[in-house]
């Protein structure tokens, strides 16, 4: 079965979805990400959906599940590049996508993840009171 590839960039896992996903492919991505986060100890997941021209409620829920699962594994997820027509359609349908952080593009998403990691490192380095 075809799978969506996951690239590792330091502490960040990068997923670029370039194919129209059927439900099984979406579910496989969720499983693969869980494994990769735990094996690589990644702290961030960046999912680029700029090539997706349709995101229905099933796929939207899958992104929410990924973000939740990643959080449990101590990694932050950012969804980037959602097309305006996709965003409007999701809102009209009533899909809330709460708990999923978003950014305009890959660059901004990366900056968001890095800022969060730096923040945590600063917390770790701070002297105990």
């Amino acid at each position, binding site marked *: 079965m075809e799978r969506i590839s996951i690239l590792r960039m330091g502490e960040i896992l990068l997923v670029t979805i370039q194919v129209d996903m059927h439900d099984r492919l979406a579910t496989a991505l969720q499983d693969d990400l869980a494994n990769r986060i735990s094996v690589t100890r990644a702290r961030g997941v960046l999912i680029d959906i700029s090539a997706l021209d349709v995101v229905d*409620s099933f796929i939207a829920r899958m992104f929410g599940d990924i973000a939740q699962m990643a959080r449990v594994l101590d990694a932050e997820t950012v969804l980037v590049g959602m*097309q305006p*027509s996709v965003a409007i359609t999701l809102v009209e*349908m009533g*899909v809330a996508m709460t708990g999923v952080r978003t950014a305009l593009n890959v660059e901004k998403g990366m900056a968001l993840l890095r800022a969060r990691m730096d923040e945590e490192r600063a917390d770790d380095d701070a002297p105990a009171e």
Partner: protein
Amino acid sequence: MMTPQRSETLPVREASDILLVRQLVREWATELGFSVLDQTKLVTAASELGRNTLIHGGGGTMLLETFVKNDRRGLRLTFEDKGPGIADLERAMTNGFTTKGGMGLGLGGSKRLVDEFEVVSRVGEGTRVTATRWT
């Protein structure tokens, strides 16, 4: 009863059929001159309804038809299955109602994406959902 200008039927039997459904709806919506936003709404509605046909109806068909009325062009999707039918239609249309672990937005959600929406369902016989959008 309007006569369709063009019509085509696709099977909805497995998960990959939903991809073909999305593709054909996108193609026809583009050809009819729908805006990108309207195309996306139609394709998304088709995806939701196709999944319902597949998961709840045990598979079925999608009939795609185009119409012309008063200088407006319409695209109609008809999903039909011979599944168990919907016992409580009003509840099934409610956001958040789900029996199979989805978001429960399939029917109610797709209704909001089109201009005309109709569900005919008989318990033990099947379900037919018709969704139409006009340019």
